[in-house]
Structure formats: structure tokens, C-alpha cells
């Protein structure tokens, strides 16, 4: 009898613990938002992926993309002007796949992904020396650490910080 109740107590503890762990993991994943982005568009890839990697539409809310696409002639200090038809087509793709949930909560004043609240929270533990590393050079250089970023994969398992 005593062994049976001990056994039951053990079972309950193990089950509760694993349930709790699962909940923690699921919540963390949901809070961070997905880190793999599969939506793609040939013109977005070609036109937005020449000077920098084509940043996933999910990283900025729709109003921000609208502002980015209406000011391409003065795009962060360079002329990235496009013909109106191509710009409109890419704009639709960006807005349809724009950030939702946590990444869209605070519509940032900035159009820089690296200055959004979610970006800074996600990268708060990255040491200053890494940002200044010659292989990184700029925060816009996702692939310097996110080795599979060009395939839309920003998962932690594919992060390699330069030494």
C-alpha cells in the first residue's frame, strides 16, 4: 500500500513537471513569434535582395512597409527607386505577409527593423564586440550570425557568432 501511494506521487510529479515544461516551451515559442519565414515572391527576392538580403515581410507591420515602399528613392541614404508597377506588386506581397502579433504591437516610428522593440529584445544578450566584429559590420547583416537567413530561417540552432 505504501509503495503504491509513493508510486502514484512519483507519477503525478513527473507528469506535472513534463506538462509544465511543455507549456513553458510552447509559450516561449509563441512569445518570440515564429523564426522561420517561408512566404516568397520572385520580384521581392530579386529587387529587395540585391543590396541586402530580402528581409522577411513578417519583420515589420504593414503601415511601416507602406512607408518603406513609398520612399524608395531615398531608402536609408541610397536611391533604391523602382518602377511603379514593380513597387506596387512587391508592396502587396509585403503587406499581405506583414508582421502580426507581438512584432506588430508597437507600430514603430522607425522603419529600421533593427530599431524595433522586438528586435532589440531578441538581441539584448548579443555582446557589443559581436556587433563591432569586422565580419558583422552592420546590424543589417543578418547572415553574419543567422547562417540560414537567406532561406528565411532565423532559428536559434542555425546561429553561429563570428569569433
Amino acid at each position, binding site marked *: 500500500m505504501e509503495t503504491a501511494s509513493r508510486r502514484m506521487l512519483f507519477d503525478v510529479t513527473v507528469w506535472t513537471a513534463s506538462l509544465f515544461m511543455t507549456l513553458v516551451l510552447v509559450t516561449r515559442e509563441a512569445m518570440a513569434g515564429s523564426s522561420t519565414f517561408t512566404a516568397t515572391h520572385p520580384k521581392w527576392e530579386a529587387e529587395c535582395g540585391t543590396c541586402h538580403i530580402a528581409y522577411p515581410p513578417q519583420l515589420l507591420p504593414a503601415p511601416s512597409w507602406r512607408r518603406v515602399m513609398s520612399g524608395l528613392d531615398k531608402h536609408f541614404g541610397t*536611391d533604391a*527607386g523602382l518602377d511603379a508597377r514593380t513597387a506596387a506588386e512587391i508592396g502587396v506581397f509585403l503587406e499581405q505577409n506583414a508582421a502580426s502579433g507581438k512584432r506588430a504591437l508597437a507600430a514603430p516610428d522607425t522603419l529600421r527593423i533593427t530599431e524595433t522593440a522586438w528586435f532589440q529584445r531578441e538581441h539584448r544578450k548579443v555582446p557589443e564586440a559581436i556587433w563591432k566584429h569586422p565580419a558583422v559590420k*552592420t546590424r*543589417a547583416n543578418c547572415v553574419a550570425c543567422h547562417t540560414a537567413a537567406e532561406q528565411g530561417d532565423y532559428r536559434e540552432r542555425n546561429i553561429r557568432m563570428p569569433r
Partner: protein
Amino acid sequence: MHTMGSVVGLWVAVSLGYAAWPASAATPVEIQRGFEAAAREGNPGFAGFSAQRGEQFFKAKHSNDWSCASCHTANPLAPGKHATTAKDITPLAPSANPQRFTDAAKVDKWFKRNCNDVLGRLCTAQEKGDVLEYLTSLKK
């Protein structure tokens, strides 16, 4: 029978050739002809393009403290790197990268953007032709 085989062979070769060719195919020579026509139109005394002038223009810093070489490097046969984003840029000289100067719309788009960035204005047909003359003079 032999003729039939040749006809089919030719047909297949031609179709494959078209399939492999980009939609708005051009050659650097054709693109240069376009610059020449525009240069003549703007300047009746047009006296041809110069690779040497093109090289000077390519390597000189202009009003925005940038040169073409800031991103494309002083050796257009080699890969470059974007000056602000650090992204790799494929070589610009056609002998090192046969895809360069084969799409007139793409050439126009990039000259407009990059001249605005480097010079703060559009380039003249003379300047574009000189640069292309320089780039096509480079042999791998």
C-alpha cells in the same frame, strides 16, 4: 532521312537557345550603341567613348564622397562589397561576369540609382558610355 535529322537537330538547338536566353536579351555592344545614340543627340561634337576617361570616372570620389569603386572595388574583375550593408556584389566587368550589361532596363535602373548615390545627379550618356568602354576593355 539525314536531312530530316539535321532539321530536327537544328530546331531543338534553336528552341533550347531561346529558352536559355533572358527575356530582354542584349549585349554590352548593343547597350553601348544606345549610349552612343543618346550622346550624339545631346552633343553634336561627340567624339567617341574613352576607356581611360571611364576608368578615371569610375575611381574618382564625387560629391557624396563615394566612388563607383567604393562598392565595386578598384578592380571590376573582382567581386565587390556594398559599402553600407556589406553584402557581396558579383564582378561588374562582362569578361568576369557574362550576365553584366545584358538587360537594358537593369542597366538603366542601376545607373540611375548609383549615379544618384555617388554623384547626387544622373550620369550623362557620355559618362555611362565611358564607364562601359572601360569595363569591356578589362580582360580576365
